[in-house]
């Protein structure tokens, strides 16, 4: 099957820009990156669908000239899901700004704590410090 270079370029550009943006710290930019990647993926579906054609409506378009309806059915779902993603990420950005005054994605505090622990060579104490269960707190028998 022959590939459509224009659509491929569009998809590649959208996904490339999206990747650049999702690696940012600002949640709004991450969100924009996610939207771009989503659009790029949708365009990829068009590429996979083959040649452009008429709308896949029986009666409107002769059967041979229709565009492939299968990828369209998939993309339709993707578009709606991306709306949900946008709404949720935006709410998070908004909340983050409310709490912290910015919408930067923070590094995980717990992970940072583990890194510090690794740096200080301080293993969990669970297996150190206890005595041998073979209780030898008693003295030598000796005198008896």
């Amino acid at each position, binding site marked *: 099957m022959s*590939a459509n270079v224009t659509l491929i370029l569009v998809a590649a550009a959208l996904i490339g820009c999206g990747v650049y943006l999702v690696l940012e710290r600002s949640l709004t930019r991450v969100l924009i990156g996610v939207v771009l990647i989503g659009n790029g993926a949708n*365009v990829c579906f068009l590429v996979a669908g083959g040649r452009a054609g008429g709308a896949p409506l*029986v009666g409107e378009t002769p059967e041979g000239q229709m565009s492939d309806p299968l990828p369209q059915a998939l993309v339709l779902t993707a578009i709606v899901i991306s709306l949900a993603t946008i709404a949720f990420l935006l709410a998070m950005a908004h909340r983050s700004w409310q709490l912290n*005054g910015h919408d930067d994605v923070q590094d995980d505090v717990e992970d940072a704590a583990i890194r510090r622990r690794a740096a200080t060579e301080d293993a969990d104490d669970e297996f150190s410090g206890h005595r041998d*269960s073979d209780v030898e707190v008693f003295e030598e028998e000796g005198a008896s």
Partner: protein
Amino acid sequence: MFACILALFATAAVAPALVRRVGTKAFALLAMVPAVAFGWALTHVGTIRSGGRVTERIDWIPHLGLHLDFSLGALQWLLVLIVVGIGALVLAYCASYFDDAPEVPGFAGVFVAFVAAMLGLVVADNLLLLYIFWELTTVFSYLLIGTQAAKATSRTAAMQAIIVTTLGGLAMLVGMLMVGVSAGTYRISELVAHPPLPSAGLTVAVAFLLLGALTKSAQVPFHFWLPGAMAAPTPVSAYLHAASMVKAGVYLVALLAPAFAATPGWRPALLVLGLATMLVGGWRALRQYDIKLLLAYGTVSQLGFLMLILGIGTRAAAVAGLALLLAHALFKAALFLVVGIIDHATGTRDLRRLSGLRRTAPAVGIAALLGALSMAGVIPLLGFVAKEAAFQALIDIAHTGDGTALAGGLGWAVLAGVVAGSVLTAAYTIRFVWGAFADKRGVGDTPLLHAPGPAFVAAPLVLAGTGLVLAFAGGLLTEVFDPYAAQFPLGAHEPALVLWHGWSLPLALSAVALLGGAAMFWRRVAVARVQSLLKVTSAEQIYRHVMRGLDRVAVEVTSLTQRGSLAAYLAITMIVVLAVPGSALVRAVAGHGQPRLWDSPAQALVGAIVILAALMATRSRRRMRAVILVGAVGYGCALLFVLHGAPDLALTQILVETVSIVVFVLVLRRLPEYFTDRPLSRRRYWRILLGTLVGLAVAGFMLVTTGARHEVPVSAAWPGVAVSYGGGGNIVNVALVDIRAWDTIGEIAVLVAAATGVASLIFIQTRLSDFRRSRTSLIRPRSPSSRVCRGGGCGCPGRGPWRPTGARSSSRWSPAWCSTRSSSTRSTCSSPGTTILGVGSPPAW
């Protein structure tokens, strides 16, 4: 059998409520259930004596070939009697042992459940079923050891026991699967009747099986968990860690010895480790001052002996091993129960403080003496009969090999080792009896807090008395054990358990063991000096080193892989995309098909606009501009859909894009106009590189995959079907409704979940508004220079008094936020550009 197991589990379920209601007396009621099971097992004695088996099969999932198979042969029958018989006695003993402490009801439930699991373990006739019960006993044992969860030692001991036994259990599961696959059946009776042919794979599988048995039965080097497990209440020590659970490994070895004793590695491993365990356990028992720990190390030692005798795989050794198994269960459970009574009555288990108990608690002393004599192997007790038989079996092996290739030096060495172990056994037995009951110089009589009642002493007396009675029933025992032993080839002698062999070598060895033990006890000060000179690293220290090392590695690995930065994770994901499928792409890139530039020039035009908008959105530092450019990209895509012949997509895209832009604008007008400004770092170029590479990779994938395709799309046949079956002309809609109905439901679920999330994030402010205000006023701004604020979009609209510093507001957006948010703050919005607050300065009204 299945009914017994179910009845016990059901009893376990009601036990906590019963104990809570009736008090500890309820233990006597609970003991009835295993007692009935004991009676049921006794009724089968005729079948067992005649060499028959009782089998049961419950269909579980018949069409997958999964059945619950149970089988009762001579070996299983003996174990069942031990498990339910001693279980009933120990439960009855619990009625006197426990007070009405809060953990007792839960303990009762777990204990009865353990009896059920243990019964299942010994009657299961399927390797996988056996494994399930095996791990159930591990879990219940863990819970029972940790009964006093408030104590750190209890928790550590429970953890140690479960880690060690589960390690072996998992290895055993691997071994079981390998054996099952190579034999074509998981049914144990079939497996033993027709063992798989020897092979390297089978040797490995058997080694894994043995690892399970060795850890469960506390063999060197895994023996340390058993003394640790003495943190459990004494009934648990008596039952799990002397009579039943620690026998599970021995049972597995005995069960499989007829099939696998000749497998390479089986005998060397069991003989060496069994003997080492016997000696290490005995040696360490000699330096204990806590009589419970003394018995625990004694158990380790005896388990080594059992492992050795039952693993060696001759007919005489098999009979001796079963006798020893029975004798050990009887005397060790009795002795532990005695320790429980002493602990309960005097409040101490330290043998240097106990004195005069032989006079103050004579009944307990008799039970202990009977048990101890059996343990040391003194005539006329079952322990003596069993040990004589074991010596005889080992002598036969040393003389003739008895089919084991151990004739000569090796055989004699094993015998010498066992005699040495018996010397230690005799020595620590004397130490135990002397330590617990004798009068000691300079120590007054240990006061009894309360004298043990007859019900309390009954259980150990019954157990120890049985050891005495059965010593005279050697003929019956031989007959009952014979069907099991008959699985091994006939050896030099037909084995027989008799009380009096005549003046023979075994008797001499017994005498050596007893005299040696007495001598060691007599010279105990010298022995103690030698003990203190031989300080070696204990296995438990090694275990702790290993666990600490594991913990260390976990911290290192976590700190390496969990950087806590979203960007880092995403970058790693992208790099993997490039490295793995990307490298495959490079090889596949030799062109398939002939790409075309575009479907129509309009497509190229729209495509160029989309790309341009995307690049500008990426470069933009203003939020609004970026969002509007993204909107342009979205509408551009909608146009591409139209040009491609996908009107449904275009329609949806335009709707979604419009809604998104509205939402974006509503939210972003509250956020700062500019993205957080940070100095351009070198990382940015890495991001550009990564984005470019991923884009290129995507382009490559699309070129290659599209070019590689040559089949007609499945949707080619859809137009006709859409009308005739789906009843619609719009094929995409029909596909969504008729083919992807479940996906559409899922999609709606996602929308609902996202809406819930959004709502909870937005409306949280009303509930936590006080908290939020104080937080924001404290935190913001972090450093005024880090943010360039131009225009009113920056900062904190609507919360007049907490307006950020450095906000030189313009009036562009301010009317909106003044009007929307002022109600919650009672304040009017300060007019743009008037006040600049310092950090922590008071509200500006």
